[in-house]
């Protein structure tokens, strides 16, 4: 051990008394106290859990008018309207004559709907993840194949419209469902007049 014992015990039998040496044994207890005090401080002051983030890319407002708007086929379009009290409404296709259907953010609500709509892509992504787990696929190969799957032309295109009564959690929940259901094409868009009318008609 670190403390050197120079006690005179061993020499007692010799009978000859030497001049008394001061013991070099140091009491470490206060030092341990100090050590643990500092540990406690550092443990409380640090943030061990780094916050997670969700990366989103918003469309630039400049080139929106020419190309991007015409691509969406009516059959692929899904519009989500985030309403108040954690309600969410959706319809397929065009706004004219659309029927709003109410659902919620639970796995049985929005997720089930989106997974059904995005069945092909979601299944392929699932398969790919299984394959990755089994064969120890390289990360970049995985990302490349994931990109290929997600580039599916028939995948749904989701428009997320948040009303003024919805809150931030609703928006993040909706975006999260996009990630879960492997929907690659979605956009947060401002609610426009025809859609506003739809909500008014529904009286929500």
């Amino acid at each position, binding site marked *: *051990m*670190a*403390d050197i014992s120079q006690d005179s015990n061993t020499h007692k039998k010799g009978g000859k008394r030497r001049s008394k040496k001061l013991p070099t*044994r140091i*009491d*470490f*207890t206060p*030092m*341990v106290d100090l*050590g*643990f005090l*500092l*540990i406690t401080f*550092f*443990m409380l*002051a*640090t*943030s*061990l859990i*780094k*916050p*997670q*983030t*969700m*990366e*989103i*890319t*918003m*469309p*630039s*407002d*400049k080139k929106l008018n020419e190309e991007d708007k015409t691509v969406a086929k009516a059959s692929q379009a899904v519009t989500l309207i*985030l309403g108040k009290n954690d309600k969410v409404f959706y319809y397929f296709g065009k706004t004219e004559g659309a029927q709003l259907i109410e659902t919620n953010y639970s*796995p049985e609500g929005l*997720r089930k709907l989106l997974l059904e709509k995005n069945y092909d892509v979601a299944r392929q992504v699932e398969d790919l993840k299984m394959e990755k787990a089994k064969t120890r696929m390289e990360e970049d190969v995985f990302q490349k194949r994931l990109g290929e799957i997600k580039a599916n032309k028939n995948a749904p295109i989701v428009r997320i419209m*948040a*009303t*003024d*009564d*919805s*809150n*931030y*959690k*609703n*928006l*993040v*929940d909706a*975006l*999260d469902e996009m*990630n*879960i259901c492997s929907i690659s094409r979605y956009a*947060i868009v*401002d609610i426009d007049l025809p859609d506003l009318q739809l909500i008014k008609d529904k009286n929500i």
Partner: protein
Amino acid sequence: MPKVKIKRKSTWIDMTAMCDVAFLLLTFFMLTSNFTKKEPILVATPSSISEIKIPETNIMTVLVDPSGKVYFGIDGQEKRRQLIEKMAASYKVSLTTEEMKRYSLLDLVGNPMYSMKAYLNLSPDVRDLPQNNLGIPADSTDNQFREWVRSAREVNPDMRIAIKADQKTPYPVIRKVMKSLQELDENRYNLITRLEKAPGK
């Protein structure tokens, strides 16, 4: 013949080993720690399945509280000083070197430029009170938030934007923030969330 005595056991415990352990742990915590940033208000972020970690440097944080007040801050004291210099110049607010230094020590500040001077002269223990944090205006008439982001971008072009908002923040406030960013052509940013377990795992 010496008497046979029962040898008394010493109550002395060797603390050296314990001391070693304590300081080992201390060293570990000191080296790995990054201190929790002091935030003027506590927000409960929503949860998501995203597992991307936020970088620690080169980041500007936009904090939005449930009542819709916007706070803004960047990392690095020197960068902060440059930022407040720029902002003071563009809003013609005269701040002393001392006040700028005080700003550079604050992580997040949510005050309009006209009350910045008064805010910086408050004593630290009343600075976090709600009535002293008015929030940065982000309306189309007086978009100071946009100016903050633009100036921060000039100070450090590599900055990433992180939005940290409370779950209950009404959407119009978020839209105001997003619109301001869109006007600056800042189309990629991060939303800070809590981790939630992905389904099916």
